[in-house]
């Protein structure tokens, strides 16, 4: 029938993600700083990041969420000039060691050649890649310390 109403525009069911990943990263709506979410096993106390479905030590399946430190030490860093298919270069990634004895792999904001091993860096939020629909995916990244 010609007078049939058009349905309201719905997000496509197969739309790709634009935020990675609510279980890993909290960006508070009140504007307070973002933080990574660690998970402490309620069975054996092991703290892990990222969240695991099962604790590899005791097979526990229940965890307490623990906000992780926002600053860490850059253990190693590299500038990537030939990257993954579809990723714009150069980009920077490295391992960041947090005081909680966890190592985070993440991209870093800024210019190539601007980071050194053992430098202190800070959590931030930014675009890590472009999704299948051509939209940016937001997630955790690290950056130079922002002066207080």
């Amino acid at each position, binding site marked *: 029938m010609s007078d049939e109403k058009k349905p309201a525009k719905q997000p496509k069911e197969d739309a790709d993600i634009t935020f990675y990943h609510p279980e890993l990263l909290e960006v508070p709506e009140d504007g307070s700083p973002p933080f990574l979410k660690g998970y402490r096993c309620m069975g054996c106390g092991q703290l892990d990041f990222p969240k695991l479905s099962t604790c*590899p030590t005791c097979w526990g399946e229940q965890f307490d969420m623990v906000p992780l430190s926002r600053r860490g030490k850059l253990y*190693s860093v590299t500038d*990537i000039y030939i990257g*993954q298919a579809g990723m714009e270069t150069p980009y920077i990634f490295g391992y960041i*060691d947090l005081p909680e004895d966890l190592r985070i792999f*993440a*991209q870093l904001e800024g210019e190539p050649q601007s980071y050194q091993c053992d430098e202190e860096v800070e959590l931030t939020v930014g675009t890590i*890649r472009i999704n299948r629909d051509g939209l940016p995916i937001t*997630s955790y990244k690290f950056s130079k310390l922002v002066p207080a």
Partner: protein
Amino acid sequence: MKLLRDVFIAGVGETPFRRHKADFDVLGRMAALEALRQSNIDRPQMIQSAYVGNATNGTVVGQTILKQLGMCGHMPIINVESACSAGGMAVHCAVKDVSTGLVDLALAVGAENHSLYMQRGTAFAPAMSDIETMHGAVMTGKYALRAKRYMHETGATVEDLAMITVKNRRHAKHNPNAWFKGDISIEEVVNSRLVADPLTLQQCCGIADGAGAVVVGSREMMDKLGIAQPIRVRGSVVQSGPYHNQPRDITGDDITESCSAALYELSGIGPKEVDIIELHDAFTIAELLYYECMGLCGKGEGLQFLRDGQSTYGGQCVVSPRGGMLSYGHPIGASGVAQVAACVKQLRNQCDGYQVEPVPRVAMTHVTGGGLSGTEHAACSMHMLSRD
């Protein structure tokens, strides 16, 4: 794995490594036929099991390779995948079959074609389900992180790393199966295109296509086939990489260290007795770190070991005598088998123009595999071979 009875290598085969228009199955058959003929095997039914390493060319690769050789039907063909360690793992499985007495003669093949399948100008990445891949990880970059940290801790320079490429290309100069070979200067290596700082293009293995094959069997089989120089498998170890998300020392390599220790114990051969090694020199930094991880020298002494010429002709142990992955390129499922093939040729004094002198008695191989977050590598496969 303790070998329950002696296992020997009868024959080996390998294709030239480079960019091939021939697909993985054609390459795999070339290598397999060479190994079978060299083993004096004249009919397909003599082989009782086969293991085929491949990582990226799809499903039932082993059956695709072997059906035209009349080897489908009478025996199990088992496809083995663990990224760059797949080939070494296939050899391990064949050795295990013979060692346990399950079969008397088994075939291991590793074959891979990347260039027909992969987008040019992009880098290898682990699976997209991996959290690090999602954040942009590529294998070049993960090794660059190791290099950056090693340089930070030891004061090594990019020129030091470049010496590995210069050495391995020189070893490969007269090896017909090597791809990139011959004289290259430290300056040319350092000034080549930057891939992942500090790794330049000439410090990275090429994305190549190729295949290797190995026939293993019992002592009785060696006699029956009339093998003049059976090469004894003194040990075969496969391990999986320890998983945790805590800081670890990436100037070491937990899995290579534990795999080496296990292989030395099983074979009764220590690191100082190994004459030649083909190891996972996918990037310059890796070879440097593995000198230390394998106990060829002490922790922190790798650079001195290299500078002193201990890893080339006349040194304590000739590392990468075929030219390594830095000369061959690295078809990821093929390399582990091709390493074994190359070592067997050295032990048999068959490397005209690049033979290590005196003819080596003991050879070791090593392939790691898989960029899996929380591990240094998902897998590691190592072998110890000897002339006696």
